């Protein structure tokens, strides 16, 4: 039995090459107003993988899901233009959105995956603004599903998925049963450009709207951000003439 639907869970992040990210004057976070946002690059890779699996006829339907304010629908629309069949926008805004972290998002994705009977949930391995690398793993744990994280290769084999994972020691190959959660790593694929005809088709695809309460998810955060600071400015180095000078200086400032 081939899997029916695959959920691709998207994150909207601050643009990766934006020139200046500033810390808010009250050190409570970074300034996001007026900063361009776009689909998280690892999520683009996740969308591409899901669409490829559908093109190879391993799955029937790809659903693009994202949590956040209205802006997030642009990301879902882009995923639709890349080939997803329909979208779900879970609306979270204001204070809830500011406090939203991997645990709340994972709860939402888990509830949706169960509700819609997804066979596979694919996410980007981490968001490039907060680099948490937690949502996929938490979603799997909440669902009590197997997980194949940091995937650089995914092959569906009947009821199982073979995942090649990029780990510190090299590549690890595992086989897990579906339903399962996968997270996409950089080398999994090269995402396609949304073609113009697909952008036109995306116009007609549906994006359903709901709130976390509809899924019975409480958005209360268990994490409190105490302070956000910029990395300390890099100080100028000191040039020395000889190795002896270097050793003397290192001894003087207590390094050795």
């Amino acid at each position, binding site marked *: 039995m081939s899997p029916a639907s695959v959920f691709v869970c998207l994150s909207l992040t601050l643009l*990766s*090459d934006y020139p200046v990210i500033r810390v808010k004057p009250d050190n409570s976070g970074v300034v996001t107003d007026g900063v361009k946002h776009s689909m998280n690059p690892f999520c683009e890779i996740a969308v591409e993988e899901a669409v490829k699996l559908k093109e190879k006829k391993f799955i029937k339907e790809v659903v693009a899901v994202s949590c956040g304010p209205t802006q997030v629908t*642009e990301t879902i629309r882009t995923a639709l233009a890349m080939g997803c069949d329909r979208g779900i926008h879970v609306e979270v805004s204001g204070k809830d959105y500011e406090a939203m972290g991997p645990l709340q998002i994972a709860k939402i994705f888990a509830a949706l995956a169960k509700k819609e009977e997804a066979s596979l949930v694919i996410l980007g391995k981490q968001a490039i603004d907060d680099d948490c690398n937690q949502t996929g793993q938490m979603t799997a744990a909440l669902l009590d599903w197997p997980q194949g994280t940091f995937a650089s290769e995914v092959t569906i084999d009947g009821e199982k998925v073979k995942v090649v994972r990029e780990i510190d020691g090299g590549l690890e190959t595992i086989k897990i049963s579906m339903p399962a959660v996968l997270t996409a790593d950089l080398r999994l694929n090269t995402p396609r450009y949304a073609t*113009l005809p697909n952008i*036109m088709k995306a*116009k007609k695809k549906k994006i359903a709207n709901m709130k976390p309460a509809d899924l019975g998810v409480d958005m209360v955060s268990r994490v409190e951000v105490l302070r956000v600071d910029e990395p300390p400015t890099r100080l100028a180095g000191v040039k020395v003439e000889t190795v002896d000078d270097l050793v003397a200086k290192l001894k003087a400032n207590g390094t050795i």
Partner: protein
Amino acid sequence: SRRGGRMMTFHLVYPGLPEMHQMMRQTCRDYADRELAPIAGKLDKEHLFPAQQVRELGAMGVMAVEVPEALGGAGMDYLAYSLAVEEISRGCGSTGCVVSVNNSLYIGPILKFGTPEQKDQWITPFTTGEKVGCFALSEPGNGSDAGAASTLARQEGGEWVLNGTKAWISNCWDASATVVFATTDKSLKHKGISAFLVPMPHPGLSLGKKEDKLGIRANSTANLILEDCRIPLGNMLGPRGSGFKIAMQTLDGGRIGIASQALGIAQAALDCAVDYAHKRTAFGAPIGKLQAVQFKLADMAVAVESARLLTWKAAMLKDAKKPFTKEAAMAKLSASEAATFCGHQSIQVLGGMGYVTDMPAERHYRDARITEIYEGTSEIQRLVIAGQLLKEYVP
């Protein structure tokens, strides 16, 4: 990082544009930033036709933006086309020219004046990027004076026989077909010109040497020589004697395409200058702090933005099927002059660095120059605008 390039880019968000247009603009921008900008210098230096990129753009639907889906196109409107050409040209001016010529000058007249059979045969294969077309109107003896076409077409049995030389034909060395204009009835002067479809290569059709141009060097330009070139009677495009009308209407739309190309080049030049103004320090601060530099950047930005709005207006009028001849001419005139202005000032802001190939400013300067000449010189645009104005003010 896949985002490539160290240059800051400007994330222009136009809330007034419909969502689909914003999305398609973003996809074209992403493609231009990642696939075109990194190779544009090489394409220019080696006069290389970007065949692979043209195929990829074809797969995205960019080579046939306005063509209905049934014929293999993207089925979008002229505003979308203008946005696409601007973004592609911002990455590579030459590639923008290939896109514009294929869409506006080759597919344009066939879409408007062709029979259903002609559309199937001459448009569909040219939507994928595998094949591109060209447009042969100008001759060595007449550019602006298009009515004086000396290329002749005579009927012999079941064929048209074409003789003559066409000059300055963009894309021709890489094209698989052309729309050619030839005189069928000399006595009728410009009402005796007809349009024809000729496949390339074809017996009786040969190409002159590739011109060695100042700019848009990845795009081939040469003479097209017709010596007893025989084509079936069915290859006439539109009614006999309507060639001049077809050419003029095609150029009206083509003007919006070239305006868009000029906008892309202008924007690239402006981006280069602003980026440099942030990074280059002199007199103890980034040169962007100096008023002399600020005034240049401001003037460049105003030139580009006002030309852009004129271009969008012309495109939107065309999409609404309203008269747009005057606006298209205004768009082409202002955008091409903005491109040469920005190209020039960008080099000035960069100083010595603007004069060497290490920075793209000199390429933008060279690429910009042609936009004031082809598809109607700036002088012709002024005549068109004045002509329309005088018609509007009936005493």
